[in-house]
């Protein structure tokens, strides 16, 4: 398809839908309604939205959907650490009922007992999986959960009169950028630890970093390299000894389910991305859920309300004294909580452990095969990877000039996603793959073959890779305008203005 921008479909007089109107008898009683708008507040000119018949609107968006490569459509192991796994279709069907879609979040508890029970049961399951003592589902992404945890760190220290003195949070360079960013949003100074030469977080560096100013320590484990820090308990002990709070980014939890938990590693808090580990869909980038769990001493800081069971009845408990209040409106993304609950119930304890095992098996199989591809490597310690690996094309780039960004575009010709890595590129020419448990050996082999093909091509005909994509729905963008305020066009109206000027 070569779809125009929606505004180009505008034909005066067409209508996509007729909204509900007022009965004549009602209108007779109150007039046209807008008469009561104060003059200064009456819109004088209609918004310049396009006018388009329903069939054309539908056709347009259906075509755009076909130009979007959802994980349903490809071997989706190339979106880095995003844990793209199979989205069970039954779960998507279960949420499409007015018994969920038409619930108002302020309904009386008595009228939403089923929904509250689902929250509560999911809470119980998460507690068992993590070892934590209470969960809140309000955070609507991992980033928001990290913000909530940073907020709890602050509330905790304030409750102990150390709110002002403890102003540093320690993280690592191979953790997600949001760990640092959200702590900074909460006013913390960030100390970023770099790994040792094997890629492990460096205990000695941590020991040097902690101080009476340490508010908290946040880390993923395994980090985005796929390397699990076996001395994590020593890390949390060091931080605790310094009076800091340890919180755990479990975005990479998929390879750990039923194997090891936040509690035993010494964390005070953790969160799971339900849209990653628990197979809720990513929906082009949200809405999502960061399920936030805390150990008992931190329960009172949780954002509210949280669901509790009292005398066989599910109730919403409001914010406790000292709680951080709220981080998101209402109760979070209920439909994604339901999806996660359904997924847990589809797998049971054995199935969850199989998830962890097969995810790690798949990752190590992939790792093994990719290291055989010419020009590819995986820096740091050999082996011992769990759920993902950060690879490098440094050799390939050195030898052929083809970069990891070139390969991104070329992989698209194979109908496959491929992602480099978060900035900064500590690993040169990086790419990050996380196969999860969802893909079969044949699927992985297909992906590997595409990489092999491109590696061969880079060595034999590098231009073919550099000029990709060749087989996409669109051709290569001219991106020169994107960083120039005079040229960038963030909306159609801005485009029309700037096109006219130039």
């Amino acid at each position, binding site marked *: 398809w070569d779809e125009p921008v929606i505004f180009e479909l505008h034909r005066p007089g067409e209508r*996509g839908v007729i909204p509900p109107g007022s009965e004549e008898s009602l209108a007779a009683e109150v007039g046209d309604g807008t008469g009561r*708008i104060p003059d200064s507040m009456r819109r004088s000119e209609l918004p310049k939205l396009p006018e388009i018949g329903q069939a054309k609107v539908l056709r347009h968006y259906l075509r755009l959907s076909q130009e979007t490569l959802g994980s349903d*459509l490809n071997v989706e192991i190339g979106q880095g650490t995003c844990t793209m796994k199979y989205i069970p279709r039954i779960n998507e069907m279960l949420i499409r009922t007015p018994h969920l879609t038409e*619930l108002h979040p302020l309904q009386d508890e008595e009228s939403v007992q089923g929904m509250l029970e689902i929250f509560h049961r999911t809470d119980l399951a998460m507690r068992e999986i993590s070892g934590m003592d209470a969960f809140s589902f309000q955070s*609507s992404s991992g980033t928001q959960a990290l913000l909530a945890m940073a907020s709890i760190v602050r509330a905790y220290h304030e409750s102990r009169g150390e709110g002002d003195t403890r102003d540093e949070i320690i993280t690592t360079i191979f953790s997600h950028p949001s760990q640092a960013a959200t702590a900074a949003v909460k006013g913390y100074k960030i100390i970023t630890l770099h790994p040792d030469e094997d890629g492990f977080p460096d205990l000695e560096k941590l020991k040097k970093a902690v101080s009476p100013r340490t508010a908290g320590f946040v880390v993923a484990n395994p980090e985005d390299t796929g390397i699990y820090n076996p001395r994590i308990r020593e890390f949390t002990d060091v931080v605790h000894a310094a009076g800091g709070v340890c919180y755990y980014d479990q975005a990479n939890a998929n390879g750990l389910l039923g194997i090891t938990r936040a509690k035993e590693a010494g964390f005070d808090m953790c969160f799971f991305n339900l849209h990653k580990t628990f197979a809720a869909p990513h929906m082009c980038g949200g809405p999502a859920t960061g399920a936030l769990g805390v150990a008992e001493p931190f329960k009172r800081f949780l954002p509210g309300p949280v669901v509790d069971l009292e005398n066989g009845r599910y109730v919403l408990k409001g914010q406790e004294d000292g709680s951080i209040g709220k981080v998101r409106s209402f109760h*979070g993304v209920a439909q994604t909580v339901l999806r996660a609950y359904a997924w847990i119930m589809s797998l049971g304890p054995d199935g969850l452990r199989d998830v962890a*095992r097969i995810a790690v098996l798949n990752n190590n199989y992939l790792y093994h095969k990719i290291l055989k591809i010419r020009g590819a490597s995986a820096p740091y310690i050999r082996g011992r990877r769990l759920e993902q690996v950060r690879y490098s094309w440094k050799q390939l780039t050195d030898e052929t000039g083809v970069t990891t960004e070139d390969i991104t575009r070329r992989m698209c010709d194979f109908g496959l996603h491929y992602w480099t890595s978060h900035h900064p590129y500590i690993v040169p020419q990086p790419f990050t793959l996380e196969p999860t448990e969802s893909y079969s050996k044949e699927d992985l082999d297909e992906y590997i073959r595409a990489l092999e093909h491109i590696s061969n091509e880079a060595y034999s005909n590098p231009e073919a890779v550099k000029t990709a994509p060749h087989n996409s*729905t669109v051709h290569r963008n001219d991106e020169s305008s994107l960083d120039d305020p005079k040229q960038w066009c963030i*909306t159609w109206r801005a485009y029309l203005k700037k096109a006219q000027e130039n």
Partner: protein
Amino acid sequence: MTRTRTFAHPYIPNTVPEVQAEMLKEIGLDSVDQLHDAIPESLKLNRDMKLPPAMTEHELRRHIDALLAKNKHGGAYLNFLGAGCWQHFVPAVCDEINQRSEFVTAYAGEPYEDHGRFQALFEYQSLIAELVDMDVVNVPTFDWAQAASTAIRMAGRITGRRTALLPKSADPDKIMIIRNYCTPVMELRLVEIDSATGRIDLDDLRAKLDADTAAVYFENPGYLGIIEDQGSAISALAHEAGAVSIVGVDPISLGVLQPPGGYGADIVCGDLQPLGMHMNYGGGQAGFIATRDEETYVMEYPSRLFGIVPTEVEGEYGFGDVAYERTSFALREKGKESVGTQTALWGITAGVYLSLMGPYGMQELGGTIMQKSQYAAKKLAAIPGVGLRFPGTAFFKEFVVDFNGTGLKVAEINRRLAEAGIFGGKDLSGGFPEWGQCALYCVTEIHSKADLDRLAEAIAKIVAKP
């Protein structure tokens, strides 16, 4: 559960024993237990998790359906709850598009394989831009509260100041979220409202504006449904003090209400939920932020901003990230706040909604909502003992009903309404105790005259003196 699994789980193909064995051999291991050798024994759980056994798909469906069947919902009950999440008409095409497998399961692909996602989000930005009459709109954020929080933080960075002023009539929950997000970097102060009209007390605003004021934030319509018609004055006061004027809007009002740029807003924010999202127990919320196309503002957005660009082929459009280097993706803690997964699917849906409605649809809809909510207010106010808290003030969609004259508590009235199949308005006695027994009623285009008459009759019956 009824069976031990001897085959692969449908979601985990490589649980097939032969395949596992083959792959283990390939990587040089003997057993799946060795896969987790990197984890020390001391940290291993080494027991089965205490979770219910797995259900088959059919068992799961019965289990979940039975749980959900316990819920009473706004399709079967008459619902007058609003207060930040509103029951509006959702065109079927919106559901069709946001249930498309491609959009449901896509994430963060590149402009080439996800061309459709980039275009749909660019179009969303462009459509909201027309509605709010601004040239820049972001890829959606979590919800209105987050959008307001970020707008305030943007203002703080732009002005280099630390306080923000908000009206006392704002949603207490929203204030809680903003406060948590801004603390300790910025501080919130509340401005009084006129107790008779519900509008902002300009004298108090003047008094509180000072050299550390980064922003004045207010809403239109406000949390209590009130149309704040002093917008130009408020923005002028803010600007005089060197502060940024931020206006939160319910976008469904903008077919009939003036867009905030018209009364001086520098940043506009709000919630997309009314534009095609089901309530989903609060899971339909999504925030947006809009500004003029000025580098000062654009460079302070934490969110992704998709821009349109030419491609190698004449006349073809491509899409990409504008000023990516702003973001925490690029700069970690040095980026603007933080960015991650937000609410992209609701952005796409809001775009579909606006494409369907068009300018006249939005205008008619605004008029209908005003007619119906005015009708309802009139009917309720006619009930002995029941009145409006702000009878002289224009409102949109929501209005505060004063039950103090009935001698009954709102909680009691709502309990009895529930028995009649009606969800009454939100009880304000907790958030605004100074007003006694008041409730916030929400009336939209989905309510028929018969629905509103039924509500009035039910309340009349409940409050009637015996």
